[in-house]
């Protein structure tokens, strides 16, 4: 909508979700809000792709889902990182750091 928002590169949504969940189990809405806030409103999660992504991660066994009660006393589906997910996050984050460093190096080339 506004121009200062960034579109997420392919594949980064999974990494961001795993990172968000590494702090504490959260429901979908909270993940979306957290990513929005932390990125100073520059990252806008396309809401429609958040849930398919969550289900994909769940299928791969990186996160697990559990029904819980939210702060306003409603039933909500909470997602939490599994051990496999934690490992995946570590390797993905590492890969991401090396990739961005490399890209930054190349961009600085004169």
């Amino acid at each position, binding site marked *: 909508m506004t121009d200062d928002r960034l579109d997420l590169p392919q594949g980064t949504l999974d990494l961001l979700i795993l990172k968000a969940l590494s702090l504490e189990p959260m429901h979908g809405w909270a993940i979306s809000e957290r990513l929005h806030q932390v990125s100073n409103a520059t990252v806008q999660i396309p*809401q*429609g792709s958040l*849930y398919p992504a969550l*289900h994909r991660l769940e*299928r791969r066994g990186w996160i697990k889902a559990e029904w819980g009660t939210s702060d306003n006393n409603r*039933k909500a589906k909470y997602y939490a990182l599994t051990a496999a997910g934690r490992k995946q996050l570590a390797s993905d984050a590492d890969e991401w750091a090396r990739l961005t460093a490399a890209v930054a190096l190349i961009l600085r080339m004169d």
Partner: protein
Amino acid sequence: MITELWADVRYRLRALFRRDDLERELDQELSFHVDRATAKYVALGLPADAARRRATIEFGGIENTKEESRDRRGTALLESVVADLRYTLRGLRAHPGFTAGVVLTLALGIGANAAMFGVLDRMLFRTPAYLRDAGDINRVYFAHTADRQRYTQGWTELGRYFDLRSTAHSVSTIVGFSTWHLAIGDGEATREVPVAGVSGEYFGLFDARPALGRFFNTQEDSSPQGTNVAVLGHAYWQSVLGGRPDVLGQALHIGRLTYTVIGVTPRNFVGLDQDEVPAVYLPLMSAAWNLRPEDHRRDFHWGFLGLAAVRAPGVTRDAAQSELSHAFLVSSLGEQPGNPEHVHRVEAGHLAVVLGPVQRDRGPEAGPEASVVQWVTGMALIVLLIACANVANLLLARALTRRREIALRLALGVSRGRLARQLLTESLVLAGLGGIAGLAIAQWGGATIRVLFLPGATGGNILNDTRTLAVTLVATLAAALATGLAPLFQALRSDVAQGLSAGARDSGARSTRLRPALLVLQAALSVVLLVGAGWFVRSLWNVRRLHLGYDVDPVMLVTLNRRGVALTPAEEIALQNRVADAARSMPGIRSASPAATIPFWSFEGRYLKVAGIDSVDLLGDFILQIGDTDYFRTIGTPIVRGRGFEPADRAGAPLVTVVSAGMARALWPGQDPLGKCIRINADTVPCTTVVGVVEDQHLHSFQNPREYTYYIPLAQYADPVNMILVRVPGDAAEALEPVRRRLQTLMPGTSYVTTTPLRSMVDPRMQSWRFGATMFVAFGGLALLLAAVGLYSVIAYGVEQRRREIGVRLALGARQEQVVRLVLRGALRLVGGGVLLGSAIAIVGGRWVAGLLFNEPATDPVVFGGVAFVLVTVAIAATTVPALAAARVDPNVTLRAD
């Protein structure tokens, strides 16, 4: 990795089986999100409904998200398959008559193929159970030329066996094997069972461990008489000896000798011969000694032994064949060293060894049964084709009536791929049900067929037979494709707008061409099958009616088996005559006579010399028969000229003979045979004078016109024959036991008699025509039934489609008969086309079948005319019902329907 995989599987399973739960959870999850977003905008000051609207828009298409989430579950394809299955089953349940008809039709087609494949596989393709390296093992055949004809036979003599074994280097092993029927047991419990004599190396050809004990070895099979040890067949051990483990070491009376049981073969072991499973295996030399106690190392007279050769590593079949052929020649020359006449005869024989596959029915000695089985299997395929054409027709008809539904679904956005998948699901389900029912049919019908074709075969539960199951699966899938493709293309071609507006009534031009074409094909294939049935039925009829020159049904053969007593030839002859006299004096017995030649079973022959003829042998096959004064009455051969044997024809009296009419014509054309002289055994012996001429007998083959018989009175024949023909007033098969029991009382020691009806020796020679006739009639009838059903359904459907047109015709003054004729004419045109096409195929194919028929030309007009008549009659019957329905169309009702 494993945990990931497991998570994936668990997730998908849950997605598949707890689908509703997941849907509800997804709903809740998404609405929770939207609620929270709404609450956020409300907190920011938006009115409630505007906040919800904004939240919903921002979320961007709830249904889309749901669909995508579902896809992420990875079950979309599976779910649609499940949905297709549900849809199909619902549709099939709604039309039980249609479903049952289609499934039964396919089941008959698939079942016929599964059953026939089982038989074909057993006869031609499958190697014997447990056999190791079947590719390196060959059955050995011996070819020679005599009488300007090439003969190939699968048996030889023990002398040859020893010669080949000692000289051949291209083969690592040569084993001999043969099966006899010998008596096992003592007293009343004595039974004749198949007993195999096999070389010491025989069991080494198999990857088989004895179920009990051990097999015998080469030391126990040494010349001249081997060791008296026996290995029991598994089935015999189970059924007769109760499968007891303590049989090892037991003594068993087999034939003349007593054997010690040393082992039991594993279950389903059949050796190299699959048709008759031996009850007991003996070392070859011991079995030979049992039957003829003499040294057989130079025996070139007693031909009975089958051979199998294992080629040495790296030796081709051709190389082994030529080396063995040379060894065969050397061995034959060595039979009578220094006899120039013998050398000349051997060289003129062009001796050769032929190495064939292990399965006898694939070798040069294959009986006509093997070809008949192949033809019948081809016929089973045709039945399946007809069944598929029928089902395709029915499905096409249904697809036409469903045109509006299909057009509607296409208009609603169902993709054509999805639709195709669904239509294919339907034919797959139908074919699958047909396949399952077909297996049931094959299991039941196959047992019947197997008894017919492979009387001695063991096992046969096709549900345990992976090869037959695989073929059934392939046939099922092929049937699904064959029946599903036509309606599929028709549906996919259909134009949405046209389909919606035209509705179910009019059918497209293209489909009206396809369905009659299928019908013509069906009729043509039915004609082919029925013509085949006609050929074989007429052959069987011809061979049954064939005048054999003697009676079969009232005659039985009594065989005297000497055991446990030593008799001189004179004593043996006395015993044989005593038994014959006893048989003659039994109440109800008409007559009896010892005989040396038994039709289609055992033959005698002697060297013959006739003045004025260089080589009598070249004129045909001369069979010697021995009989006493009762012989011609016993077997029922009429005397044409002169006399039969009389009591005066005793030993020492002038030698006399009776000849067959054909023999008289062949030896003395245009002359009176009575009083002519033939010399038997050598040129120098005194004359044997012809005193009578009898009708020709077919003793060796049904078809050989150069088969001649001459007869010598028993009293003037030096050797015992130990076989007696007995004639009873009724059917010999019903008098076997009383005769056996009466004559058994005359037997000394543990000797015994066996009784066999002559019918059981003649009948197996008619088997191939009986198989052919039975199977072709069965499949031809099946094809005709299917074709009739197909014709009926197509015509009835056509009448339904043309109801409006017929109504118009009737309204315009057409009479009812004219309508009936209109419908009949359409049907008969199709069937007529089928008859022509099918007859053409049958005439072309007939060239290859002609050799299997008996006195039956493959162009027999009776067969073709009969088949055409049957087909047209059936067509008229199948068309009459819908034609009458057409005539009863009420124009008042029909024309107002639209």
